[in-house]
């Protein structure tokens, strides 16, 4: 299955783009997305356990993904 991963702020800079399409096995979880992205990011540009949102809601690493889900890596927030 395919999911789109949105990258923001410092993470977009780290990857040099604002989104990436990943192909995952059926039953893949948020943890699998982070693992796969870690291999794509330049050395230590991605923290070990970044916050993640699935379909614009914060999600735990054990959440199972469905094809077409919008996953987002959330860098440390700095609103206000």
């Amino acid at each position, binding site marked *: 299955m395919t999911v789109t991963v*949105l990258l*923001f*702020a*410092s993470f977009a*800079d780290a990857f040099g783009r604002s989104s990436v399409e990943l192909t995952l096995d059926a039953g893949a979880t948020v943890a699998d997305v982070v693992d796969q992205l870690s291999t794509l990011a330049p050395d230590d540009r991605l923290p070990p356990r970044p916050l993640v*949102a699935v379909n*614009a*809601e*914060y999600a735990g690493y054990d959440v199972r993904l469905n094809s077409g889900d919008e996953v*987002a890596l*959330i*860098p*440390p*927030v*700095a*609103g*206000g």
Partner: protein
Amino acid sequence: MIRAALVSEPIDVGALIAEVADVSTGATAVFAGTVRDVNDGRPVSGIEYSAYTAMAARELLRIAQEAAREFAPLRIVVEHRVGSLELGDVSVGIVTAHAHRGPAIDGMRFVIEEIKRRVPIWKRECYADGTREWVGV
């Protein structure tokens, strides 16, 4: 009344105050976050705010709704700006109104603290020497 929004135009705090005004309220609390000219000893010339727009708008509204429940009956409006801001520009405006000052002030405080904790908004500071850095990374 509850309203929350991400905006790209300047925030008019006076308009927000007028929006929550009601004869049932005896206390109005206002918070305006503004762009400061120094951070960690470095001269700042401006801040660029960006957001995960759909999620940030929803989280802002959810926070406002939580405050309204927690400090009911609370009237509340919150706007957070995105884009390039100059020194002194308002980045976030929060106005709460209640019959009494305690819930008005506590509700306003709740909203700004929750924004800082969980709304997916990021800022990149622009320094006087021309460099830029993400804040909090």
